C-alpha cells in the first residue's frame, strides 16, 4: 500500500478579509519551558471581539500553560502579547513590569478556575469576594460596592439570598458562579475559563454553561476556554485550537474540527469522545 503522502494536513486559509475589527487578543510565538520540558512551543492565540475560542487537548498538552501565560501569571520565554483594552493597546504585555501586569490582570482580564479555591477566598462572604475586585480599583463606598457586587452576582445567576454565605459552604456550581461574578465585575476585555464546569454534576454543568452562553451574548465578552470536554467546547466555542505536546496541531471552526477533523490526533480525540 502506498504511503499516505497526500494527507490533507491543515489547509492554509486566507487571512481575514471581512473582519474589520482588530483582534481583542493577539499572542504570537509563545514558548514556555520548565527546566528541560518544553510546555508550549510556537503557539499563536488570536481572538476577535465577542468570540469564544476553545483550546482542547489532553493533560500535558500545554493548554493550561497557555491560559496561565494569557493571565500573566507566569513569565513567558518568548512571544508577544497584545490586548485591545483601554490604556494598553499598544503595549506588549509581556514586557510590562510586575506591578503594571497585575494592574492589567485586575482591570482587563477575568478568570474562572476549575478549582474555586484558586480564585476565591473560601471563608469570606460571596459578595465580599466579588467586591474585593472593585476595591482594587479604588472604590470605597460600602453601598456602591455591595450594589455592584450583587449586580455582578445576579448576572452570573447566583441566588442573591445567599450572597452573604462564604464559598466554602456553597455547592460546586454556586462556587463557579461566584468566581464568574468576580471575574466579570470590572467588565474585562478578556475572560479566561479553565475547565469551568469540569467536576460538576451534568445537570449543574448545563446550567453553568447556559449562564456563560447568555453572558457571552448579552455582553459580547471575548472568551478563551480551555477544556478537555468536547461537549463543553461544542456548546460554547466558536473556534477551536487542538493542542498536543505543547503545539497547536489543528485549528478551525468548532463544527469543522468536531465533524471533519483533519489531523490524525484530532480524529482520534473526536472519535474517542463522540
Amino acid at each position, binding site marked *: *500500500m502506498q504511503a*499516505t503522502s*497526500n494527507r490533507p494536513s491543515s489547509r492554509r*486559509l*486566507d487571512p*481575514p*478579509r471581512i473582519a474589520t475589527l482588530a483582534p481583542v487578543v493577539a499572542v504570537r510565538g509563545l514558548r514556555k519551558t520548565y527546566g528541560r520540558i518544553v510546555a508550549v512551543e510556537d503557539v499563536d492565540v488570536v481572538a476577535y471581539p465577542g468570540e469564544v475560542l476553545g483550546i482542547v487537548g489532553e493533560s500535558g498538552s500545554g493548554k493550561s500553560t497557555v491560559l496561565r501565560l494569557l493571565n500573566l501569571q507566569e513569565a513567558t520565554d518568548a512571544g508577544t502579547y497584545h490586548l485591545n483594552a483601554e490604556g494598553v493597546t499598544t503595549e506588549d504585555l509581556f514586557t510590562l513590569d510586575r506591578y503594571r501586569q497585575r494592574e492589567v490582570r485586575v482591570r482587563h482580564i477575568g478568570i474562572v478556575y476549575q478549582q474555586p479555591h484558586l480564585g476565591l477566598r473560601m471563608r469570606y462572604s460571596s459578595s465580599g469576594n466579588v467586591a474585593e475586585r472593585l476595591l482594587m480599583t479604588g472604590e470605597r463606598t460600602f453601598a456602591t460596592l455591595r450594589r455592584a457586587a450583587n449586580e455582578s452576582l445576579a448576572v452570573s445567576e447566583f441566588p442573591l439570598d445567599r450572597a452573604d454565605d462564604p464559598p466554602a459552604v456553597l455547592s460546586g456550581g454556586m462556587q463557579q458562579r461566584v468566581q464568574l461574578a468576580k471575574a466579570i465585575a470590572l467588565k474585562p476585555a478578556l475572560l479566561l475559563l479553565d475547565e469551568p464546569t469540569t467536576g460538576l454534576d451534568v445537570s449543574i454543568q448545563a446550567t453553568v454553561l447556559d449562564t456563560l452562553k447568555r453572558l457571552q*451574548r448579552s455582553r459580547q465578552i471575548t472568551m478563551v476556554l480551555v477544556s478537555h470536554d468536547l461537549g463543553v467546547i461544542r456548546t460554547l466555542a466558536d473556534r477551536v485550537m487542538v493542542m498536543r505536546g505543547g503545539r497547536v496541531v489543528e485549528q478551525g*471552526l468548532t463544527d469543522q474540527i468536531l465533524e471533519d477533523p483533519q489531523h490524525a490526533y484530532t480524529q482520534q480525540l473526536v472519535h474517542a469522545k463522540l
Partner: protein
Amino acid sequence: MPLLDVRDYSKHFHIDHLGREIGVFDTLSFTLEPGQFLLVSGPNGVGKSTLLRCLFRSYLPTSGQALYDSRYGQIDLASAADIDIMTLRREEIGFVTQFLRPRPRVSALELVAEPLLAAMDAADAETRAASMLDNFGLKSALWSAYPTTFSGGEQQKVNLARALIAPRRLLLLDEPTASLDAATRRSLAERLAELKAEGVAMLGVFHHPQDVAHLLDGEINLTLPQTSPNGVSAGN
C-alpha cells in the same frame, strides 16, 4: 455575477486509522444565481449533504473554489478565514436541517428570535418569532415553553422557524422536509417561495422533491465515482 460560482470542487475524507482516502465528489462545477433554487440530486451516499456542509464549511473541501459574492465583495468559501465564515454564517448564509438543538431553559420564542438579536431589540425579535411560529403551526400555548420537552414534530416547527427567520442571501437546505407532517411541509414550501421571491438563492437536498418541485430551477446531479460501486475508493 452569480451569487455562487463553484469550480473544480472536490472533497475527500482522509481517515487516518484506516490509512485511506474516501473520495466523495471530484471537480464539481456549477453556478447559482440570486433567487435560483437548485436541487442537489443523486443516489444515497453520493455526497449530497457533504456538498452542502463543505459550502457551509462544517467540512473542509479538499480542493477547488466556491466563490461567493458577499456584501463585502467576492470571497472563496473554500479558503476564507474562519472568522470571515463566522460573519457570513451570522449575516448571509443559512443552513437548514431537520434537527433542532434545544438548550435547557431557553423558550421556543427565545430560540427562534435569537438569530435576529444582532439586528434588532429583543421585543421586536420576539414579535417576529411569534408570527414565524404561528406560520409553522406551533400552538401559541407552547411559545414560552422549553422545546427540550417538545415532541419531534413540534421541535421541527421550532427548528424551521429559527432557521428561516433571519434574512439570508444563500440557504443550504439539508432534507428539511424529512418526517414533517403535510401541513408543516406546506408551510415550509410557502416560506421558501417567499424567500425565493425576495431573491434568496437556495441549494437543497430533498428526500421528496415533489414538495418543492414548483420552486425548482434546476438540478445538480451527483454521480458515484466510476472506480467503485459503493462510493468508496481506496487512497491513491
